């Protein structure tokens, strides 16, 4: 038997590469990653859906969160401090994009790209080299290590799964509540109708700054959690993250109907999990049809293109 070549691809699927892996583990690992990226997708949801601001900062703020977290681990801080640091760094990155857009009047897409490219250098400076490991041997006790030691009788995969699930549920409900507060409502109104918001005495620029900052704080949190999940930070881990976040959002919208906030954030989470399962299936079993890990971005891109084109195709080529 020739062994399947194990291609070093995107460090996600770390779980899958651990070797002997049954269908249940396969499922659990994919769902775990769906939950991890669900945090990022919630961030993307805030900008793309609530604020109607296509924010590409994500590709930079995601590794920023991971880099800041790793730096703080190396400096001897615990994982809670690391996560707080990542949240703050992400919010700052978002604020920077927001200021480019609202103060310098740079178009939304360009503002995000500018921050993203600046962050590439900044992330390298934070990390000191293109990739770094978090290791117990170096005294880095990530949240997952702490949890594993706290529940020694429960298999690690379940501990991780339950923790990530609980974290995402808490974040979902916090976000749901926030979007119904005075500021949250003002943010959503800004994304819908800026003229109205101004005539109702709300400064739309303020709402954009708050929304974009919050979004990137969540994205950076996702990066910090993923750094702990795979015990590894890579400078290129952010490439294409905004599109995979968007893919999660729109896959969720296709799968679940509804426009209430509760349903919309649920769409994002379900979308993220389904999207990760789909990519994991493509990676695991797509090998026989020549699918390689490096085809993943193409897969994601085509998926997003198809879903976004669907309404137009349906209209042009008759009733489906």
């Amino acid at each position, binding site marked *: 038997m020739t062994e399947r070549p194990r291609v070093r691809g995107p460090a996600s699927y770390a779980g899958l590469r651990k070797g002997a892996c049954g269908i249940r583990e396969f499922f659990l690992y994919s769902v775990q990653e769906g939950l991890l990226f669900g945090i990022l997708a919630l961030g993307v949801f805030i900008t793309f859906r609530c604020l109607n601001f296509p924010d590409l900062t994500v590709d930079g703020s995601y590794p920023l969160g991971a880099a800041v977290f790793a730096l703080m681990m190396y400096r001897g801080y615990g994982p809670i401090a690391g996560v707080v640091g990542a949240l703050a760094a992400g919010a700052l990155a978002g604020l920077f994009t927001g200021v480019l857009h609202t103060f310098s009047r740079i178009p939304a897409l360009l503002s995000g790209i500018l921050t993203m490219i600046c962050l590439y250098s900044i992330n390298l400076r934070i990390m000191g080299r293109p990739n770094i490991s978090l290791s117990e041997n170096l005294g880095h006790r990530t949240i997952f290590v702490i949890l594993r030691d706290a529940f020694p009788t429960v298999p690690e995969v379940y501990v991780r799964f339950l923790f990530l699930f609980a974290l995402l549920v808490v974040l979902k409900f916090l976000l749901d*509540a*926030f979007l*119904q*507060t*005075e*500021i*949250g*409502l*003002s943010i*959503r*109104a800004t*994304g*819908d*109708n800026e*003229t*109205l*918001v*101004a*005539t*109702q*005495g*709300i*400064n*739309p620029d303020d709402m954009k700054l708050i929304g974009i900052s919050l979004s990137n704080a969540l994205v950076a949190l996702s990066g910090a959690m993923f750094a702990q999940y795979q015990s590894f930070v890579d400078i290129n881990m952010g490439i294409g993250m905004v599109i995979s976040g968007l893919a999660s959002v729109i896959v969720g919208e296709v799968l679940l109907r509804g*426009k209430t906030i509760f349903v919309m954030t649920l769409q994002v989470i379900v979308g993220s999990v389904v999207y990760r399962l789909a990519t994991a299936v493509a990676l695991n079993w797509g090998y026989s049809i020549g699918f390689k890990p490096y085809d993943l971005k193409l897969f994601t891109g085509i998926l997003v293109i198809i879903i976004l084109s669907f309404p137009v195709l349906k209209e042009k080529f008759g009733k489906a």
Partner: protein
Amino acid sequence: MLKLDRVNKYFFRNTQDERWAVRNLSLEVRRGEFVTVVGSNGAGKTTLLNLISGTYFPDSGRIFIDGHDVTTVPAYERAKYLGRVFQNTFQGTASSLTIEENLAIAYLKGKRKGIRMAINEKMREYFRERLAEIGLGLERRLKDRVGLLSGGQRQALALLMATFGNPKILLLDEHTANLDPKTGEKIMELTTRLIEENALTAIMVTHNLQDALQYGNRTLMMDEGEVVLDIFGEERKRMTIQELLERFSELRHKKFAEDRALLSS
């Protein structure tokens, strides 16, 4: 209540396309006046409203609302003095938000936004009350998204939102122009009722000369960025559309060029 002092506004200033949209315009509107503004396309009617609301700042001159100099106050800050309804029925509301969320945005106008829940039961009660008054059954649809409403319903909602908290001045920018005549009439009824009940000062831009004379208590006619005719009191009561058009030709030595106005009069 509102005072404009020698206000000028240019578009594309210092280019070949320069247009002098509002020319040395001075205007005083007293408390409780309901002013209708007519004029052909490009006369500066909407520019006038945009200057009052702060969408644009004037190139020279000063604007006062209730004694406050607002000439350079940004739109969102002077919004506390103003309510505004637009011609485009999608502009006065947020379509993706529910009726109660839209009303909450208007209800919270002028208040500092925090992380309190935006809507509570007491507010809902107030919203139902106010919606019941406009008689469209919207009080039973608080959680429906505004995008599901008809143009007339959206405009009624926008009107209600614009009058929340009794603004110093209500600005109406051809707010019935995109509605069918019957709905437009209903919205005009609602408009006058809300203005009377709340004793509001209002400025209504319209293309409909009939409406301009029928509603309100003062009429301004604009042409090329100037107010060319300002009628009120007995003179206005006796004025007919025909006379209004004649007065215009006398003053400006040209015909009142407005197909829409003539067709709809």
